[in-house]
């Protein structure tokens, strides 16, 4: 890639925080360093990955609203975690995490367990258990 071909696509997901470093060639074929603010294919691929995540979050939110799932499922999806990852933060088994994603089991959780889950998602227990909060998040 020649240095004047390094893409500078305005449409990117970098929020102006980041201009990545690329290695590109000068007219003799020697390498120089060039910054790039974004490249469309990469943005597309990244956006696609986030679409999958956001779709799952939205589905989890809907399930919580319908009473089919507990807020735990929503926050797990929101933090792009899996049951086993949540389990290792909250020091419990992934099977238990899966169970606690159902309202029936979630309602029976002790304060201590709830605190562990809240710690995992960096929120308070009140935020974790307050379903109304998810309603307001309506996009």
């Amino acid at each position, binding site marked *: *890639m020649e240095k004047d071909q*390094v893409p500078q696509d305005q449409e990117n*997901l*970098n*929020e102006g*925080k*980041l*201009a*990545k*470093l*690329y*290695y*590109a*060639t000068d007219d003799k*074929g*020697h*390498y120089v*360093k060039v*910054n790039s603010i974004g*490249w*469309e*294919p*990469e943005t*597309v*691929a*990244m*956006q*696609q*990955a*986030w679409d*999958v995540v956001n779709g799952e979050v939205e589905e989890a939110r809907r399930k919580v609203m319908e009473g089919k799932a507990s807020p735990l499922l929503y926050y797990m999806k929101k933090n*792009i*975690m899996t049951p086993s*990852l949540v389990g*290792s*933060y909250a020091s419990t088994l992934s099977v238990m995490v899966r169970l606690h994603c159902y309202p029936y089991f979630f309602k029976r959780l002790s304060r201590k367990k709830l605190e562990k889950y809240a710690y995992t998602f*960096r929120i308070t227990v009140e935020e974790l258990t307050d379903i109304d909060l998810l309603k307001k998040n309506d996009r």
Partner: protein
Amino acid sequence: MIVNFTHKQSAHCESGVVSNLLRFHGLDFDEPMVFGIGSGLFFSYLPFIKVNGIPVAAYRIWPGQIFKRFSERIGIKIETKKFSSPAKAMVALDQMLEKGQPVGMLTSVFYLNYLPAAYRFHFNAHNIIVFGKENGNYLVSDPVMEYTTEISYEDLVRARFAKGMPEPSGRMYYPVQIPSDYSLEKALWKGIKQTSDHMTRIPVPIVGSKGMKYLAKRLRYWPERIGDRKAIQWLGNLIRMQEEIGTGGAGFRFIYAAFLDQASIKLQNEKLFNLSKQLTKSGDQLRDFAYYAGRVCKNRKSDTRTFAELADMLEACAQREQEIFQELYDVSKSK
């Protein structure tokens, strides 16, 4: 306390951290040199290991290896520490900063809130350098960023003690002994030899340039095997592995070509420069591949013909790399 430290941006986090840390200790290695001597370039496609249901394709060797190989070849002694409790880890960090030593460490990208939100997935092998503490915040030199940044105590603890695979467990490292004398020539050839050897001569079909060919073969049938929606997801993941942050473009091929370019000057070997040019072309092919793959992802329509075309592109690239690294092996064999 702030350590007097110069930050230079780099493409790849691991080689960038090594380059920045060593500059502080008086050894000046540009990022591509670290990447090349540490034999960073590789390819592997592991269909049986899946992350989020998507098979792993890596354009580089696994995390930690570049650092290890590089310090072995130059003769640097590194001290690595692992901690059982966050409190202990942070105290140890403060002590090192007090002594005026910048410290490299492993972190999870998810908790580094100075990065754009779009990059913050759970990737637990990101390297950064902490070089100071001010008003309770830590000063961070993240090699992929243009400038140095800050991070709060809580975020840094989270990042250093993230769970999942692999667990950083608060790992931190710093050089304790810098060699006064080393043979650059020997280290360069050793790095080149290992890379070219691993790219062409490992008798396993899923690694090296054979691995790329294998991926091309599999990719051809993705839409039939797993359906359009998933095939596009897998393709998008492949683009991310190749082009996302830390690759320097074209799945590290450009960094390695930059290394060959610099090595050819250091070793006064014209052949290496020629190979650098060829690798640039191969990198350009990979960029084209990513460009068309991005098109397929954007239109969200795939028919087997586009996937067949993409597979052809990848296969041509694999063939070219096989030739390049074979030649590189022949050049470096006798050294």
